[in-house]
């Protein structure tokens, strides 16, 4: 087990390492000059060159990458004298349009993304799994057909149309206030305001994912119930309830861990569409703004790397959890 885990951890680190190189190469080769972008409207070549030097962009690309990696661990200082800027570790760079270190900007946006992801995750797992189990047990009845319709609609409705419809409904019911929307409300001081901020975004995201989990749960439970050991359990007189909860679900729900972990890891990087529709200033909305406003390269690289890092990290967690649950994985 320990050997398997260490192998997976090393692999994850190698992936992150390669990823940082690739992201750096891709963005280093794009025809956009961050130094040009950093000096605003009153620009002259001298300022651009000074900024280029200050941002450390006048050295070879591989050296820039190395500085970037070191900055992640040690923090970075840009410029000298009066114009000195220091970003503490982990330093992803400096975002000129925001006049702040990228790490600070991302730290400000993360609570929104995190709350959105956690709330939606809880909601869709609860709805998806219970609806899936119900549909599997009542296979062929109207409940089952209802679940099929739910799966179809949930997986075909593009999430931004679903989001717009929910947003409009909430607006017409005076449940959402576009002016207040998007400011951080602490759940401790104002729980109602906190829920009002997120509830519709949670529902939007959860509906789309719940459809997938309903289908997965339903088919896994049905498939498991035709296994021999389930028949044996029934034959020896185990109650239907225990057959379902103690025998069937253990097997049926295990594969869902992979999906759940990867979906959650993917969302932690930012749910771009949902955040954009509900104007929640999370990582996703921030990155789309960074792209559209003035192509704030350090911020875009930061959010992209962070999103990929979350995904790789949760991939690792899923692999380890799965190896723990299913010993066959460890041996292969």
């Amino acid at each position, binding site marked *: 087990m320990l050997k398997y885990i260490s192998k997976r951890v090393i692999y994850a680190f190698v992936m992150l390492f390669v*990823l940082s190189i690739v992201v750096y190469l891709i963005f280093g080769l794009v025809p956009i000059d961050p130094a040009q972008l950093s000096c605003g409207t009153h620009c002259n070549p001298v300022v651009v060159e000074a900024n280029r030097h200050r941002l450390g962009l006048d050295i070879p690309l591989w050296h820039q990458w190395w500085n970037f990696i070191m900055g992640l661990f040690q923090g970075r200082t840009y410029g000298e004298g009066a114009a000195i800027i220091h970003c503490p570790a982990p330093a992803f760079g400096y975002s000129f349009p925001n006049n702040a270190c990228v790490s600070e900007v991302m730290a400000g946006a993360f609570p929104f993304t995190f709350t959105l992801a956690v709330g939606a995750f809880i909601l869709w797992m609860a709805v998806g799994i219970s609806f899936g189990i119900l549909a599997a047990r009542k296979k062929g009845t109207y409940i089952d057909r209802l679940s099929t319709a739910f799966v179809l609609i949930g997986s075909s409705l593009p999430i*931004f149309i679903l989001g717009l419809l929910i947003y409009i409904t909430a607006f017409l019911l005076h449940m959402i206030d576009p002016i207040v929307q998007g400011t951080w409300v602490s759940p401790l001081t104002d729980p109602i305001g906190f829920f009002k901020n997120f509830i519709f975004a949670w529902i939007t995201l959860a509906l789309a994912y719940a459809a997938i989990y309903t289908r997965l749960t339903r088919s896994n439970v049905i498939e498991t119930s035709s296994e021999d050991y389930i028949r044996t359990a029934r034959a020896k007189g185990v109650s239907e309830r225990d057959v379902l909860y103690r025998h069937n679900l253990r097997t049926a729900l295990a594969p869902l861990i992979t999906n759940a972990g990867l979906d959650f890891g993917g969302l932690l990087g930012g749910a771009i*569409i949902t955040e954009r529709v509900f104007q929640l200033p999370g990582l996703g909305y921030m990155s789309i703004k960074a792209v559209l406003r003035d192509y704030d390269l350090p911020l875009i690289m930061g*959010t992209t790397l962070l999103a990929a890092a979350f995904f790789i990290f949760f991939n690792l967690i899923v692999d380890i959890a799965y190896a723990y649950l299913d010993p066959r994985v460890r041996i292969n």
Partner: protein
Amino acid sequence: MAIIYPMSATIKLSDGELAQRSPRQIAWMRLKRNKVALVSAGVALFFVVIAFLAPVITGLFHVDNTKLYLDQLIDGQPKGGFGGISWSHPFGIEPGAGRDLMALLLYGSRISFSIAIITSVTYVGIGLVLGISAAYMGGAVDSILGRIADFLLSFPTTFMFVALSVPLTMRVEALGIAKDNGARIVVMVLILTVFSWPGFYRVVRSQVLSLREREFVLAASALGASRKRIIFKELLPNLWPLAIIYLSISLPGYLAAEAVFSFLGVGVQAPSSTWGLVLNDASSFWQRDPTYLAIPAGMVIIVVLSLNLLGDGLRDALDPKSDR
């Protein structure tokens, strides 16, 4: 997903004669029995046809996608209720600029469908070629392709698209491949394809690995069939159902993806129109002109839903053992 291809079956005709049915005929029979899938196929086909006939249809209604019908607007809002729907403008008028909504959506669906179809065909083609190569060549080719696929799958696609679309569009323009929206379409197809093939590649690879051990392939190679013959005559016919299933399942996804990226502002841009652009515009007008939002939203939902239903039907017909 394990594909068990339907074996040919011998059935008895009414006059006592025996007839063979090819796997294709069996699949077609199953599809024909699925009324929902047939209706969906009709709806989807209808939208594709009107997209390609866009100039003819707009000509019939005497509307033009570039003409501004400013006489139909009062203070930037369409005259009359329901978004200015009238006999001469069946879907109404775009608020603000004053273009005909039907013409916008028709010409928009051309772009949306082209992107979806080109992307699907390209990624399925790449997946087939690389999957077969990896399974057959093995060794270094297999492990390198596997690593690349792993790597690409660990990128968040939407993020990469948002981050890369602007600079890549500039690069494509600088290389002189295409201009403006042409370049944006090229970039969209490129990014979507790059992040889509690994999934299908893995399925093809594992499918070829298991097919290679099947008796009919062993028999062919025992008879001295060349590798080329085995790939084209024995393997490919068994991979087509898989390719068709993936094509039909991914089409609605790419239609939605195109709409999403245009909606976010990183896809095709005005003065062209796509479903996503119209929806993006409509999302800021919905309080004054709800019809303007309802028509394109309804259209996207109908098309995506019918394509999904058709995809499900095709999967049931071609792969009866799939879990659904």
